[in-house]
């Protein structure tokens, strides 16, 4: 668990981002320490997913600064530099985005072999272990189309872990799942978090956020309205907007 004195591994300060005339992020700042689990909650369209995509450079920012480990993300211009950053930051998507023409095992193995240029044998052992960890060892030969949403999402988590990243980003990873499979994915994420992985999650699962997060951020209309440790945040929200949101959802 994080101790307050650590230097943050992700440091976001005053980030602005517009798509055309729509200002999605209006000066967002946040710090995440190594090993911390941070949940970002908020209504749709409040810029949560965009913020996540800014962290690994999928979306370039207009103004402000983002530092991830040793990388000044906002200064990375060349593809090569961005790729180096993305080796440290894995991302799991709402729509899983597994590669449909590859089996579960191949999905997990591809990036370490072709991006990190690691030894195939060694990667295969690791990939099998990861699939076992997400309880899909028996599905290694299945194609994504043959797996349920929850199973696909767990493969996607294993695929991210196979890169041995410093940070994992989860973008509403349970939003496309039916209620029963949500749980199996959340259990997997909790295990990842408990092993000390730095996790930033955008989620609508308030119960999960309360239970797993070290810190909760509430965003609305491109700004962070309020943030705090979950116990405090959920029980005694200071801002009226936060209380309104929580009352609708809880």
């Amino acid at each position, binding site marked *: 668990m994080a101790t307050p004195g650590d230097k943050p591994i992700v440091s976001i300060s005053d980030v602005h981002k517009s798509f055309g005339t729509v200002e999605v992020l209006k000066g967002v700042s946040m710090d995440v320490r190594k090993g911390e689990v941070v949940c970002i909650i908020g209504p749709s369209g409040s810029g949560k997913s965009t913020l996540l995509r800014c962290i690994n450079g999928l979306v370039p920012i207009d103004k402000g600064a983002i530092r991830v480990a040793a990388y000044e993300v906002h200064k990375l211009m060349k593809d090569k530099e961005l790729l180096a950053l993305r080796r440290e930051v894995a991302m799991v998507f709402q*729509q899983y985005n597994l*590669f449909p023409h590859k089996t579960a095992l191949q999905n997990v193995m591809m990036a370490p072999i072709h991006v990190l240029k690691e030894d195939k044998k060694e990667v295969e052992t690791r990939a099998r272990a990861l699939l076992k960890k997400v309880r899909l060892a028996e599905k290694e030969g299945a194609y994504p189309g043959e797996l349920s949403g929850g199973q696909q999402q767990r493969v996607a988590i294993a695929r991210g872990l196979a890169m041995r990243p410093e940070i994992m980003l989860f973008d509403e990873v349970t939003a496309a799942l039916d209620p029963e499979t949500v749980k199996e994915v959340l259990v997997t994420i909790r295990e990842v978090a408990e092993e000390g992985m730095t996790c930033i999650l955008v989620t609508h699962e308030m119960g999960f956020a309360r239970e797993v997060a070290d810190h909760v951020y509430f965003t609305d209309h491109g700004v962070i309205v309020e943030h705090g440790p979950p116990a405090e945040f959920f029980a005694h929200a200071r801002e009226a907007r936060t209380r309104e949101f929580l009352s609708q959802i809880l």
Partner: protein
Amino acid sequence: MSRHGQGIRAALARGSDLPVLLPAAERLARSAAEERAMGLPSLRLTPAHGIVIVLIFLLATGAAEAETAPVHASVIMTLLKWTPLLLKGFAFNIAISFFAMAIGTVAGTGLGLAQISLLPPVRRTASFAMHFFRNAPWLVVLFYCMFLLPFQVRIFGVEVPLPDWIKATFGLGLPVMANVSEIVRGAVQSIPSGQWESANSLAFSRRQTIWMIILPQCVKRMLPPWMNLYAILAMSTVLASVVGVSEVMTLTGDVLAAENRPELLLPFYSYILVWFFLYCYPIARWTVSLERHFAVNI
């Protein structure tokens, strides 16, 4: 963009009454646009076409048989007599179609990828080349190649002759290239953006993403229009007769000139038509069944 596509974008912009329908509508508009992009007239050959063609052949042969003077061999015998020669010519057509398709596919894949290049000059040049060769009449391109390509080239100090049929193959390969490039571009753009996003976030380079993740998924989508293009190309190889390549049409003309019997004209040409039907029909059927298969499975 299509009028339909614009309508949907406009509806998206102003906020539709039924936003829940928009993803489906947009998907439909995209697939329609994609079809137009890949858009050669698709070959929908049915058994009825075959029956009509065979009937034409039989009627023409019967009529010619009735007209044949007693001194001449029967029309059927004359057809059979020349069949081996004509088959050789037909094999030439098939060979030209194979090579033109191979050249067009390799070059077209390159041109299609150039069309989605991140470098605007590359993209613009590729797009210009695509439009140029896709909209130029095939015969005109063929003539240009026949007269602009030298009759021999020097490769590593060795003079290599360029016979007419090779020049014709290049001439037909160029429009094929332009059409293949649109098939490739359309297929690449039909892959959901999530695939690019996840490849990006796994630190695959753009080149790796295209070759290892995007293109393999495109193959299935590209196969039906690619085969359709091939069937059209196979039929277009007879254009080479205009520039003097001894393929089946040229040979048929030669045979008719040698026989000097006007009544043979219709039987011979409808005979060739039957061959082309027999060759293209299975390809067209297969294309349709693949399309159906993928429509269900993609």
